[in-house]
């Protein structure tokens, strides 16, 4: 006949097996009742303890307690496992169902393109500068060597503010009509008037022209301007920098062409055309993309730089145009309609 200690071990083994096999919480509860409950096997073992000889009691009691503690621990672990399992769906998971999405917002394509341009220039040591959008004729035209009767100043082409208020530091007798800047070049003047050369800035920002909105025009659009003034700056430097930036922006396979042109604030002046497989796919040889040139000596004189000492270049281009070329967007108005189906594409 098995000893009492052997009986305890047998019941312990049976209890362990039953707990281990319990497939759900109900089976686990049944196992608990069978072994650890009020009428369970261990309870009855405890009752039999009294009948044992006195010298055997401590060892037997200890063994029963150890087994009980062990079983309680396993029961707890097993219960936690089964509870977790019970909280999961019972059906098999359809992994092809759409997930519960969290949507990220999108930056406006003009912001993205602007940031890309800024990043390229920053690699070359340029920093971002800024200026007001409400300008005066001096910064927007006069200082940039624009003739007094130049058509760009017409109220046909430029927005003027109603009821002009005199600027606090206006020189007496100079009427300074307030207008919405027609180009970011006005910031060149503000920066050069404020700081001594060398200058390396880029200026992204909104500009305004009095054009009715159509597929290629919007009265509000964005430009980015680059200005570099130092000793011995050349057309070669201008070409090198423009090459670098446009390759970064539009891909290494673009080809640029400089074409003599006219701007009042640069001399010599050029327009920049580019071509790429994409341009040729559009059925064109070249696409005009930017204007540039060497800062006109008159502009340097206007801001108090000595043109004999300093030379520099400036260039500017439309951000919308770059974005349109890059993404194949065919209507500039889309940028300002803010249709989320458009915004989400970039």
């Amino acid at each position, binding site marked *: 006949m098995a000893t009492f200690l052997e009986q305890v071990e047998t019941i312990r083994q049976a209890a362990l097996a039953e707990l281990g096999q319990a497939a759900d919480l109900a089976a686990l509860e049944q196992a608990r009742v069978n072994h650890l409950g009020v009428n369970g096997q261990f309870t009855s073992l405890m009752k039999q303890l009294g009948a044992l000889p006195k010298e055997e009691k401590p060892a037997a009691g200890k063994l029963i307690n150890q087994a009980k503690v062990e079983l309680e621990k396993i029961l707890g672990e097993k219960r936690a496992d089964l509870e977790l399992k019970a909280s999961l769906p019972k059906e098999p998971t359809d992994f092809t169902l759409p997930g519960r999405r969290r*949507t*990220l917002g*999108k930056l406006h394509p003009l912001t993205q393109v602007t940031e890309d341009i800024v990043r390229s220039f920053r690699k070359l040591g340029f920093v971002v500068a800024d200026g007001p959008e409400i300008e005066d004729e001096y910064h927007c035209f006069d200082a940039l060597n624009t003739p007094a009767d130049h*058509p760009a100043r017409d109220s046909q082409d430029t927005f003027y503010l109603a009821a002009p*208020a005199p600027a606090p530091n206006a020189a007496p007798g100079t009427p300074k009509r307030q207008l919405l800047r027609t180009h970011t070049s006005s910031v060149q003047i503000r920066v050069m008037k404020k700081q001594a050369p060398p200058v390396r800035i880029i200026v992204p920002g909104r500009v305004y022209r009095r054009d009715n909105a159509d597929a290629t025009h919007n009265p509000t659009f964005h430009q980015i301007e680059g200005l570099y003034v130092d000793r011995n700056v*050349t057309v070669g430097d201008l070409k090198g920098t423009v090459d670098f930036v446009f390759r970064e922006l539009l891909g290494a396979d673009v080809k640029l062409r400089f074409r003599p042109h006219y701007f009042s604030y640069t001399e010599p*002046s050029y327009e920049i055309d580019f071509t790429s497989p994409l341009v040729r796919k559009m059925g064109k040889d070249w696409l005009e993309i930017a204007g540039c040139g060497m800062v006109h000596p008159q502009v340097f004189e206007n801001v108090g730089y000595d043109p004999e000492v300093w030379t520099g270049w400036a260039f500017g281009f439309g951000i919308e145009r770059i974005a349109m070329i890059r993404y194949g967007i065919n209507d500039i108005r889309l940028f300002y*309609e803010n249709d989320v189906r458009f915004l989400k594409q970039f």
Partner: protein
Amino acid sequence: MKVTLNWLKNYVDFDWSPEELKERLTLLGLEVEGMGKIGGDFEGVVVAQVITCEKHPNADKLTVCRVNDGQGERQIVCGAKNFQAGDKVPLALPGCTLAGPAGSPPFTIKVGKIRGVDSYGMMCSPKELGLAEDASGLMLLPADARVGQGFAAFLGRAGNDVVYDLEVTPNRPDLNSVIGIAREISALTGNPLKLPGITLPAGAGRVQEAVGVRIEDEEACPRYTARLIRGVKVGPSPDWLKQSLEKVGLRSISNVVDVTNYVMLECGQPLHAFDYHLLQPQAAQALPTIVIRRAGEGEKFTTLDNQERQLTSQMLVIADECRAIALAGVMGGQNSEINEKTVDVLLESAAFKPQSIRATSKKLELRSDASYRFERGSDIGICDWASQRAAQLILETAGGQLAEGVVDAFPRPPQSKEITLRFARTDQLLGVAIPAAEQAGYLRKLELAVVREEASSVTVRVPTWRVDLKREADLIEEVGRLYGVDKIPSTAPKCSAGANEFDAVHDQYAEVRRLLAGLGLDETQGQTLLPETGARLTGKDLVCLQNPLSSDMNVLRPSLLPGLLDALQRNLNRKNGDLALFELGRVFLPGAHGPREGRRLALALTGSRSPLFWTGTEREARLDLHDLKGLIEEFFEQIGIRGVNYVRRAEPTSLYLESAEIQLGKYLLGELGWLQPALARKLDLRDSGLLAELDLDLLLARRNPEKSFKALPAFPSIRRDVAMLVPEEVTHDAVLKLVKQARLQSLETVSLFDVFRGQNVPAGQKSLAYAFIYRHAERTLTDQEVNEAHNRLVEQFKQQLHATVRE
């Protein structure tokens, strides 16, 4: 400016192909905006006659024809049905390229087999020739068409030529002429410029005895020449003259008028011809006199286009002693124009001040080829040459007899200008070494007379036609142009650090945008220019435009919200119902010292809280104010703004049904609220609209983005929850204030986890439930300590907030 290849070739030799010329002109700075072949379209197409016509052995719908092309017979397979033997048709010979219908690429005719039968060309429909849309059958030609004749000639079209449409930059008025462009080609090729030789007959009767010239405003009219040709016969122009004009888009009028236009196109000098007998002298026997004067204020004058115009005293007119006869430099007058009865022609060739012509032309909204040229600056030196050239051509085309000499009123011939070019300066600016002799050579080729040449510099005299050359930089540009900008080597970008205080601000804007995109909002870009009605909704003062394009865009935005509302509406109209948008941009407000510009950040939400999903109770949830506020709170925390108060406004505004100011200490940082339902309805919102706007300048100035490490807690925390009924007007903020006042040292956080109204909550009350977390930094708190502190707090709630705490 339009010019044709053949016309250019009259003045300078070059052997470039039409495409090459386009490239060369473009790289000289004369951008070719358009290029078109004239008359060459039908090269290889002839008039042919069908001799026989038989069914194709292998195809029911095709016929095999024998056709006479004028040289011989050839076999053609044809799909058309509308012809029979004997008909005359256009035949495209192998090798010929047809432009094809608009929108499709050109195609070249080849010899080939069609269903096993050889075909040596193609008989054409009107559509295949690009003449009409009709593609139903062959183009049938009249019976008298001459077999073998070139099709272009059959149509009566002129011979081959190429017309270029050039963009002339405003600084180069000299390029608004064929000779000006030829001069550029001459400079580039080194081939001489061949100006037409002029030999005028001696003339009979001095012109001075027939007409006088009096300039009353020498500033506005620095030169005026007059010639007289008597006894002309006004009539149609000869073909060469007519075609020269028509090729570049001018209408032929009569021989005399056409000559003036031809010479203008040729040399850039606008001319005008008057009927001499329509000049009214002061008295019957007096000498007719041309007077160049300012118009009288309100003077009425009928221009050639049959419009009566009211002049101002700023405008310059050409007059006789009695009345105006032309609007100087802009357009002639009806009262003196050349007509079929004209016998004596007075020819004007003058120079006018560009600003004067521009002002007149603009004021009257009257533009002409003459005003276009004068307002850009004409060549004062060419007046007499142009007059002689025109006189010669009038004599050739309209006959007549020239009066001897010219009346040339030229009171103050301008001093010729000299500019010095330092060769080293060219190299320094262009970044390439161009030998001195080469530099000087370029200037010579442009007909700049060299006054002085030294080892290091050259001084040139600027010809009268180059009004753009003012200083050294302008000469450097000329050298660079002829040298070729494509030959200037690119140099690797030089790197050094720039400096500008805005650079850091730019990054802050980028950070703000990235945070909001990360929070799930899409960035928009709204219009700066708004309709006044929309902008008024914001309740702000406005900066107005003096010359708006329309009333839809007449003020500058005082806030970004109208633009966002616009974006909401447009999206909702297009059934994009779930929107979370933001914009970062400038606003404009009037100020004591003129308009002020500021940067704002605005948010707008409407629609579903989360993307479409297929299960769960939350999936129907709509965005509400607390979504908006949660975004703002998270944004503030990330950007480093703390201690913000939300103060509810007592009254609705025109924009908001219910709103709050966002206060940061004594500053107003922004606002947020529920959009007015009436507005929402107008914008077609199906759900509530939520708006917020923040003063970004203030926000960035007040932010504290500094971060420092705090040790992680080493001891456990104890949580106590409180659920209490409080009167409706007790705000969450009031609860927090009270908690703060209690100054419980071990209180770590307090969080609201339930707000409830309804069952078991008396009307006018709400139930708030808070979790309080207590922790000590240096030891484990005892239950007793926590209970003591917590009970004090609960006691405060009861006393100060009249709270009923649910135990």
